[in-house]
């Protein structure tokens, strides 16, 4: 178990470092510039340098904050993220605990991040932070519903919450072929769940400065950052399991296939960010309640009907 924990922490850190570098490179190339080039080959070590800098920074605690809550928030956002890795099947053998409620565990623990964002925003005693927190909560609640419903239509087809069973059910054809609408809905909701553009209103820097983490500095800010990128990995991993056949592939070892699929989805999410403007708060919520949730329900009903008929 200790080995697994160390493994997970190492994976989370390396993954975040890689993703931040990848995001900067993707952004740079979309925007016709080279991006980081100085530290390491094509700036590969840039994020390592940034992380070291962040660790060396002074942890500033503003005077008027609600201290216990303020200090707990970055830890609370980070711990559930570690739990999520317990059930992700990287390959047939590379899975820490193959729980029979795997997918439920992921959704349950990933929704805990909202709590942390609320704590951070409220305790910071900063109006911008409060706005960020309010927006984040409204958004996460609105987008978690269609996310669960879309996942539900897959679970109906498989008949199990176990992630390995879901992958096993895709031995003939990936679910993205059978459930293209569900896949689309899932990607949209996942982008919103991770507060990524065009749904990044909780930290819309042109409106709210930095949103809920405005008052955090140093490694406390670093933990929020780490959690954001790790969450991105988790939602993409879940998408891979649910729709893209998990570790399935040809020639290359399964774990490689799994990672290729995950990073392809992450690339897609990054691509969104550097292409689209940001939605307004009311439009975002309207979109969730009036478009995504009805569509997700229709998809679920059609799936249920189809299973009953055939």
């Amino acid at each position, binding site marked *: 178990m200790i080995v697994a924990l160390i493994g997970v922490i190492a994976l989370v850190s390396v993954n975040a470092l890689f993703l931040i570098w990848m995001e900067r490179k993707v*952004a740079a190339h*979309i*925007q*016709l*510039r080279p991006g980081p080039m100085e530290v390491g080959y094509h700036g590969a070590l840039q994020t390592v340098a940034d992380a070291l800098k962040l660790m060396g920074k002074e942890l500033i605690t503003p005077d008027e904050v609600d201290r216990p809550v303020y200090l707990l928030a970055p830890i609370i956002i980070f711990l559930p993220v570690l739990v999520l890795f317990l059930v992700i099947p990287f390959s047939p053998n590379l899975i820490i605990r193959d729980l029979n409620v795997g997918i439920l565990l992921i959704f349950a623990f990933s929704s805990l991040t909202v709590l942390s964002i609320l704590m951070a925003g409220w305790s910071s005693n900063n*109006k911008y932070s409060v*706005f960020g927190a*309010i927006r984040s909560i409204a958004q996460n609640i609105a987008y978690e519903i269609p996310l669960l419903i879309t996942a539900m239509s897959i679970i109906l087809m498989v008949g199990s919450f176990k992630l390995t069973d879901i992958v096993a059910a895709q031995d003939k054809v990936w679910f993205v072929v059978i459930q293209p609408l569900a896949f689309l809905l899932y990607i949209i909701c996942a982008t919103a769940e991770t507060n990524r*553009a*065009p749904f*990044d*209103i909780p930290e*819309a*820097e*042109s*409106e709210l*400065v930095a949103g809920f983490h405005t008052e955090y500095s140093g490694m406390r800010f670093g933990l929020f950052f780490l959690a954001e990128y790790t969450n991105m990995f988790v939602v993409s991993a879940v998408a891979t399991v649910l729709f893209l056949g998990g570790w399935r592939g040809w020639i290359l070892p399964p774990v490689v296939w799994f990672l290729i699929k995950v990073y392809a989805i992450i690339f897609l999410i990054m691509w969104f*960010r*550097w*292409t*689209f*403007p*940001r*939605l*307004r*708060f*009311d*439009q975002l919520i309207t979109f969730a309640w009036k478009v995504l949730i009805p569509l997700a329900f229709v998809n679920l009903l059609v799936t249920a009907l189809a299973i009953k008929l055939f």
Partner: protein
Amino acid sequence: MNGAQTMPQTETMVLNLGPQHPSTHGVLRVVLELDGELIVKADPDIGYLHRGIEKMCEFRTYHQCLPLTDRIDYLAGSANNLGFVLAVEKLLGVEVPKRGQYIRVMIAELTRISSHLFWLGTHGHDLGAMTPLFYAFREREKLMDLFEMVWGGRLFPCYFRIGGLAADLPEGFTDQVWEFVETFPKKIEDYENLLTHNRIWIARTKGVGVMSPDEVLDWGWSGPMARGSGVDWDLRRDNPYSRYEDFDFVVPLGSNGDTYDRYLVRMEEMRQSNRIVRQVLENLPSGDINVADPRVALPPKERVYNNIEALINHFLIIEEGVIPPVGEVYQAIEAPKGELGFYIASDGTGHPLRVKIRAPSFANLAALGKLAKGRLLSDLIALIGTMDIVLADVDR
């Protein structure tokens, strides 16, 4: 107990947006009264960039005022210079030779493109579209390189002088402008591909900040802000200066008067400016760039070195500057952001008695409170972006 007492008491919140804020385009401070995210009242508080340019002008010769005008709207320095030199020339009653005027038109239009590119980048960025910023700045950088060829700097030109220009265009400049003019329309398509038909962009800008034509006139809006509402008013066409009447261009108009229409108007204006620059290049006459009158413009260096009268003229212009007759003059030009007017009163000495600058951003910004009322916080950011304010222009 009746129901009213069990209802939670709510109150509005005051949020101080700026002067240090990522999207207030400088040092604008907006005091917001918010009900949730809804704006009950928005009160722009200006003056953080007030440098007293109008007062400073009173203690300087006309030539010394010119560098101050660079700093009114620092994104379009040449446009400010043009307004000021035209006003002084009107006061003096001189007219610059055709080549000088054509070069002025070309630089002014390139400046308009550069200013609009800056607006496009920052406006997009404010609404969360990060990439158009880099696309727009790529072309703006090219323009900055061109400007650097002419006056050696990027933002503060001081290239237009009373009675003409500081110098003729450098060698090879027109070739490079040709290159820019040929490629630029394609680049505008790049920006439009990212934004014009983007559903999110339309959702964020359509119906935001609607001004009717009557309201535009009441609030004294000008430039693209007024034309977005369909007010057909462009000083380049309706009150031509610097030989704008020689050029063929269309004044684009919007119909709804919202942020999206103003966006379309500015995009089209860039195309039209590009057309004007092309026409200047095609018809650029040769000849003098400066007024021949040695009391207004510096005599050619050749003559200063060899002729005592020319040397004396040179000294007088440097020491005393131009001395206009007693009188008042108002000269307005179509700056990238709207009508930029210079009112100059002269008492017959080498210093202006009074300089009043009618800055477009100031008049445009005044309506912010009216437009933001009842909208969401995010709309305020869109409104500040669409107004294309430069705080240096507002405060002066």
